[in-house]
């Protein structure tokens, strides 16, 4: 009998085995075991951040940001181009910023997300909207009437704090493209683990983020001291606790800022050097 390859011959849905494990048995995972051995993390600790601007040759501006826990985001910026349908969404006299956020199908832990599935698309669209809200205050859109700027972020690997990394990378890419901006938007994520006395932690890794009861992502324009994005939720706590979390997050943004600036300077120097080399080659 010929085999029908289009039909999946397994059960319609699958369930993780942990659900059926006897109650009280704690599933032992390698990484969680490691976590317990390690000393409790300093909540103010930032994970090492690596940023590089201007690495894609085809895009006008591009940036790559990697966080210590394995988060990798690649961003490209295009523009300004003539808007396809003038004045559709933006008021007359200002440009439009279009943001896109995509996750690689293999970005997450566990089972592969089917690309293009409804839930996946929904999550990407929400992240794209958050990205746009974080970047719009930083870009001088009034300088680009009837034009559109496009930024696309591609999440290669999700190791926690992905949206924050995408915000930083996207603003680097825009700056690298030579778009007029007020400042870089620096993103920073925080989370609070369960427990009554748990403190907020900066830049959580993926396991920490999964266990967290409350999450927060902030974006800051450090030179102007303006907050461009606040997005968070979870277990309720008093406004004072949230204020403390916000302060911690904004402090984190201030500390990340020099790293991003350095990477921009390096990209500019590299570009100068290649231009000079090309010029000497032409005269020789």
């Amino acid at each position, binding site marked *: 009998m010929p085999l029908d390859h289009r039909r999946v011959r397994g059960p319609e849905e699958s*369930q*993780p085995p942990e*659900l059926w494990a006897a109650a009280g048995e704690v599933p032992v995972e390698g990484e969680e075991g490691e976590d317990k051995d390690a000393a409790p993390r300093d909540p103010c600790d930032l994970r090492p951040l690596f940023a590089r601007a201007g690495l894609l040759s085809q895009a006008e501006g591009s940036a790559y940001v990697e966080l210590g826990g394995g988060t990798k985001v690649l961003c490209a910026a295009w523009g300004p181009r003539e808007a396809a349908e003038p004045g559709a969404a933006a008021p007359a006299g200002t440009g439009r910023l279009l943001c896109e956020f995509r996750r690689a199908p293999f970005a997450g832990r566990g089972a592969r997300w089917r690309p293009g599935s409804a839930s996946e698309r*929904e999550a990407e*669209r*929400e992240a794209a*909207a958050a990205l746009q*809200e974080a970047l*719009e*205050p*930083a870009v001088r859109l009034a300088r680009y009437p009837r034009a559109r700027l496009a930024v696309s972020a591609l999440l290669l690997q999700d190791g926690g704090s992905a949206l924050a990394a995408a915000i930083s990378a996207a603003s680097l890419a825009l700056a690298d493209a030579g778009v007029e901006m007020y400042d870089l938007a620096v993103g920073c994520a925080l989370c609070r683990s369960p427990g009554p006395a748990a403190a907020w932690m900066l830049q959580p890794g993926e396991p920490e983020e999964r266990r967290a*009861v409350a999450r*927060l992502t902030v974006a800051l*324009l450090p030179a*102007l*001291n*303006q*907050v*461009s*994005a*606040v*997005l*968070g*939720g*979870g*277990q*309720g*706590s*008093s*406004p004072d606790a*949230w*204020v403390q979390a*916000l*302060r911690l997050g*904004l402090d984190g943004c201030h500390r990340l800022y020099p790293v991003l600036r350095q990477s921009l300077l390096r990209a500019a120097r590299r570009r100068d050097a290649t231009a000079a080399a090309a010029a000497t080659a032409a005269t020789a």
Partner: protein
Amino acid sequence: MASVVLSEPEKLYIVHGVQEDLRVDGRGCEDYRCAEVETDVVSNTSGSARVKLGHTDILVGVKAEMGTPKLEKPDEGYLEFFVDCSANATPEFEGRGGEELGTEIANTLYRVFSSESSVDLKSLCINPREHCWVLYVDVLLLECGGNLFDAISIAVKAALFNTRIPKVRVLEDEEGSKEIELSDDPYDCIRLNVDDVPCIVTLSKIGYRHVVDATLQEEACSLASLLISVTSKGALTSMKKVGKGSLDPESIFEMMETGKRVGKSLHIALQKILDEEESLGTSRQKVGFLG
């Protein structure tokens, strides 16, 4: 979203008024417009509510259906939100025009209700891993007159308060096969505890001050607003910045304090209305859509 076009002098008039704590309709910066709340307006639902806040008109229907629990939470029911932007509200919503706003609002509602304590989801479980109640919360925007988020969250809370889920029992015979039995008495039902359901308070930054419950005209003057959800005890469960502009950290802290204060009094007022309506029972004169 529905928007109005204002000239510069009109904007200046509103901004200067807000500076003096006097808004165009005579309110102060921390006052809500007069709100009308009516529950049990659609008889085909498990619970429904209609909220009219100024010119914003929201209808929420909750339908309880039986489903299977989510894999990661086998002993809990869950809530599903869907927001429909009717073309009656503004012509922009025609066709697929309102879809983007609808998903944005639905995502915000998911975030607001993401806190475990907001609704007791365990009470929605019928038998673990197999059956639970799924509450489909459908939000209809009938008219947009500014401050959609607050009005929607008030309507959702009122509708959840009004929700009655029939009681079911699980019978198990000797062979282990299970059967679900519905109670014969239609008044034998579960009510949800909505004490910890948060309400959204939107604070719009206008000039150097912030206002609650902005009208469409005021929203046109505001570049950025902060959306926070507050429970009746004054705890914040989520926050989000919306709009094109950015905010100063200090003003965010101030807005959170104001939001907590305003949110607490909003909850008290809403609970009073709901209890009053509840005590009238069937003798209450229904206003519905004729009011």
